[in-house]
């Protein structure tokens, strides 16, 4: 028995959500008296992986087949399944990212395991019972789910667990290969189009989001400048994407992207229930709206009743004055 953590990398670095998954995996390993190994796939240098020892990972299996530098679900699933078999892993930890969610379900069937996605807590283990808490009803509730198969696969929601760091920990990195064939790459992307700025919306710790209260695309610099001053990613509400002020991939909400940052600042967004579904697991919500009756205030921790074009410049000024 062992715990296997799947590590995602971007631009040669381990993603923050994977550091969370590694911390989670190490805690599960400690609770079950075993060790945590990681499997990393794709374009990353071994150096970037050794520091996973700080999150309690002892060994990292790295498959750096160049065909895996783009995400191809069937190929990734084969690599992880082979690693799980080699390590005799009974618990496999993923991030609840686009990638984690796309591979978790295929992996569960391949390994005959139970899968829980959107997981927000460490497992409760009592004898043979293994239960995790996950977000349901678009963030409006939680459910405790028992994973009844021998193999358990868990996709951990971003920002739901703390990253534990023990300075000086070093993981050993071993080359790993799953002997993939061309058939495993049938859905390899022909082209990848990067659209966002420097900070990935789904990985961001602070998100500044704008709605129709901005009045027009000419005022979008307010959102961008506040985000820049706070080191935040930018997002928008559905109506803003629908009228074409911003592209759809920035739309946060039930049918768009779900985010769970430490801080979500909604500017000129009334807070329709569909929007709340995409943001209500943020740790702190700030709402700026000139309508004091806007429903978003009910979900907010802090609020300012005022016009965005007057309030946001003051916030930018105060944010710039913060010593970083």
């Amino acid at each position, binding site marked *: 028995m062992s715990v296997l953590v799947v590590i995602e990398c971007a631009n040669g670095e381990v993603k923050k959500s994977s550091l969370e998954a590694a911390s989670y995996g190490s805690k599960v390993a400690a609770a079950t008296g075993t060790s945590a190994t990681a499997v990393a796939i794709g374009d990353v240098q071994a150096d970037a992986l050794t520091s996973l020892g700080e999150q309690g990972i002892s060994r990292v299996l790295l498959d750096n087949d160049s065909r895996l530098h783009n995400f191809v679900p*069937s190929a990734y699933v084969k690599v992880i399944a082979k690693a799980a078999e080699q390590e005799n892993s009974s618990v496999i930890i993923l991030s609840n990212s*686009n990638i984690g969610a796309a591979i978790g379900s295929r992996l569960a*069937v391949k390994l005959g395991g139970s899968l829980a996605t959107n997981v927000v807590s460490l497992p409760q283990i009592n004898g043979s019972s293994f239960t995790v808490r996950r977000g349901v009803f678009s963030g409006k509730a*939680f459910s405790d789910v028992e994973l009844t198969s021998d193999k358990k696969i868990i996709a951990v929601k971003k920002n739901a667990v703390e990253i534990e760091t023990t300075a000086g920990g070093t993981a050993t990195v071993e080359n790993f290969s799953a002997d993939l064939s061309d058939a495993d790459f049938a859905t390899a992307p022909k082209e990848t189009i990067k659209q966002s700025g420097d900070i990935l*919306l789904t990985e961001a710790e602070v998100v500044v989001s704008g709605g129709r209260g901005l009045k027009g695309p000419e005022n979008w610099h307010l959102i961008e400048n506040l985000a820049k001053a706070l080191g935040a990613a930018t997002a928008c509400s559905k109506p803003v994407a629908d009228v074409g002020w911003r592209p759809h991939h920035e739309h946060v909400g039930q049918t768009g992207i779900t985010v769970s940052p430490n*801080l979500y600042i909604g500017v000129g967004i009334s807070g329709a229930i569909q929007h709340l*579904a995409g943001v209500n697991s943020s740790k702190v919500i700030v709402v700026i709206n000139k309508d004091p009756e806007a429903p978003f205030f009910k979900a907010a921790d802090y*609020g*300012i009743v005022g016009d965005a074009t007057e309030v946001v410049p003051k916030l930018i000024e*105060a944010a710039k004055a913060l010593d970083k």
Partner: protein
Amino acid sequence: MKILVCISNVPDTTTKITFSPDGKTFNTAGVQFVINPYDEYALTRAIELKEAHGGSVTVLNVGEADTEPNIRKALAIGADDAIRVNLKPTDAYLVSQQIAYYAKEGGFDLILMGRESIDYNGYQVHGMVGELLGIPTVAPAIKLDVNGSTATLEREIEGGKEIIEAPLPLVVSAQQPMAEPRIPNMRGIMTARTKPLKVVDPVGQDAKTSVQNYELPPAKSGVKLIPAESAGDLIKLLRNEAKVL
């Protein structure tokens, strides 16, 4: 081209979620159930593809008899026929097993569904169906076109998108803006009544998870309002009090 669209029956988005006092069951009394919004994108795109290339659209739902009004709605929107697997959908694998069996039996070229349901938010069924059938899955797709035996898709990735060409048969999970959902018209509603809706038995009852309990998150303590004229104070509160900056 034969397309299978899998739909689930979910509480309307605006539903206030409540549970029985012991936390074991979701209270359905007074709740309006709708076609899962993500599944509506899949359904609409399937109908558009049928209109462009010919073929048929079959709707499949794993659910008990109370889901039939929404299956009829899917037929009214333009699906040709429907299958209801008579089973309460309590687990993603349980549902995927049913879909994979009937998908194989019907010999479908494309199996479409939403990326997740808005009640259980599992994001699992498309991948499980693909793996059970041994065919690729593209999830979540924001664009889907078909040319002969090849599909061209756009898949959303973190910070961008990918263009993918994939061979049929294929499982695709849909996300906005794949298609603009349609409202059934009167003619559609009338013809839906005569379209075939076949009720079939489940092909296995193998669940991998079991819900023990539901719980609502703690209520928010209320918003702290900062006067607009001293808006800058908010930034200090976020750093010193909330400790998020």
